[in-house]
């Protein structure tokens, strides 16, 4: 399950930190692992194209590596693209089989970004945080 690529992203996370002027920010956690993430997204002037992404947090290698890879993948995509992504997209990015109980770790960043976008567009009510418990 732990290819070199995953370990590399875990040890040297890309897009790590906070954006100066994000369009929206959302947080989330996976209570089972204690994984916690904050995702910042900056949109271009069209209010649709993702221009900048960063994440911050801690947790298991799967959650952190997935966040690192996912944040790189998002840049240049639209909110519509983000909305259309599902768990398989993240698992494809990781490039390994993820055991069923660890899927929650893998999709944490994706779910946070999707919830954050929905709240930003007024499609979802404000929520304190996203959880991947269910």
């Amino acid at each position, binding site marked *: 399950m732990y290819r070199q690529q995953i370990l590399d992203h875990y040890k040297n996370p890309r897009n790590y930190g906070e954006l100066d002027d994000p369009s929206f920010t959302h947080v989330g956690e996976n209570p089972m692992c204690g994984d916690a993430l904050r995702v910042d997204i900056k949109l271009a002037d069209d209010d649709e194209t993702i221009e900048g992404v960063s994440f911050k947090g801690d947790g298991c290698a*799967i959650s952190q590596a997935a966040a690192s890879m996912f944040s790189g993948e998002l840049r240049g995509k639209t909110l519509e693209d983000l909305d259309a992504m599902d768990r398989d997209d993240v698992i494809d990015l990781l490039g390994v089989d993820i055991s069923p109980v660890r899927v929650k770790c893998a999709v944490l960043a994706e779910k946070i970004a999707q919830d954050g976008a929905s709240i930003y567009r007024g499609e979802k009510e404000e929520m304190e945080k996203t959880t991947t418990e269910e």
Partner: protein
Amino acid sequence: MFTLEALFSVMSTQRTEALDVERLREDFPILDREVGGDIETPGASPEDDTPLVYLDNGATSQTPERVIDAISTYYREYNSNVHRGVHHLSQEASIAYEAAHERLADFIGANGAEEIVFTKNTTEAMNLIAYSWGLEELGPGDEVVLTEMEHHASLVTWQQIAKKTGADVRYIAIDDEGRLDMDHARELIGEDTEMVSVVHISNVLGTINPIAELADLAHAYDSYVFADGAQAVPNRPVDVGELGADFYAFSGHKMCGPTGIGVLYGREELFEAIDPFLFGGEMIRKVDFEDATWNELPWKFEAGTPPIAEGIALAEATDYIDEIGMEAIQRHETDLADYAMTELEEFDDIEIYGPPRGEDRSGVVSFNLEGVHAHDLASIMNDDAVAIRAGDHCTQPLHEKLGTAASARASFYLYNTKEEVDTLVEAIDSARQLFA
């Protein structure tokens, strides 16, 4: 001439005769399994390639052939509903099912079947008392005293019952090495205490709590004691009379028995006084359109068709471990835990939780490897077919107290070997290398 030392040495060897683990392992077909193949279809697959090292016995133990046979024989030869039937099969099933209660009573030193209720598991046993006794007896100002090392089975249950009744929940603190702070216990247990609900042995720390001492404290204030014995009954002699607990619960699947069955012990006069938890068939004596009266103990607490095959198989499992010897099992498990802790203590980057090695503690060893999340550790060890548990082990508040979201836990049983501990340590080392 025998010297006194020689005599003692002979006696102590007899008392703690080592288990013939290689022979015992032959009783457990699953221990021959290799893993690593397809997980979608349960059971062995042709792609399995690595021999299983099963170190998750605190979660569930494996099942010996004769217990599997007991289940199989029941379904092949006398599957039938109990209590009601006049026909032959029902009589066979009823006699075996009732005898299973007697067997479990005898095993933990209860007075008889009337003090033994079969439930689904320890959690249901806890809920049975919390709902039937707690909802009725607790009110504002009353206190239920738990511990900081409580399993969610008791912690969440009493929390919710307290919310419904207005009672308060208090927690006996633990010290830095995971023992109960008995001074704090003496402070907390008092006039307002109605129930002291404590885990007999911590499923994370391995701490063995002084139930008899807590029972004395509680009884001085006419409070009851419920001890959760899920981690104790499988691996050491337990006598409810000596412990002084009013209620005691444990699960079949952690003691070589099947899933789907737990045991609730309660003192007969308390069981007599408490209303049933679940209503329905089997638990009644007389019913009319207005009301009903309850069946005799323990059937009053076993509504509907009970876990018949499971109960009979649990009695078989009890025979199995009892014949091996509970003291010998305890010694074997403690020795393995001691050996594992000795090996793990060699590394500065491993933190072990709970009382130190050498103290009386059970065969669970919970730990963290610095820089590697417990779930990552368990996943990497799974690549080597080493089965351990990682997470909060149903003790989130305890983990908060320990300052970590999750820990890894190896837990041993009668069929585990030192070689398996060595494999564990090697697998931890591969995780260390991978993350270095």
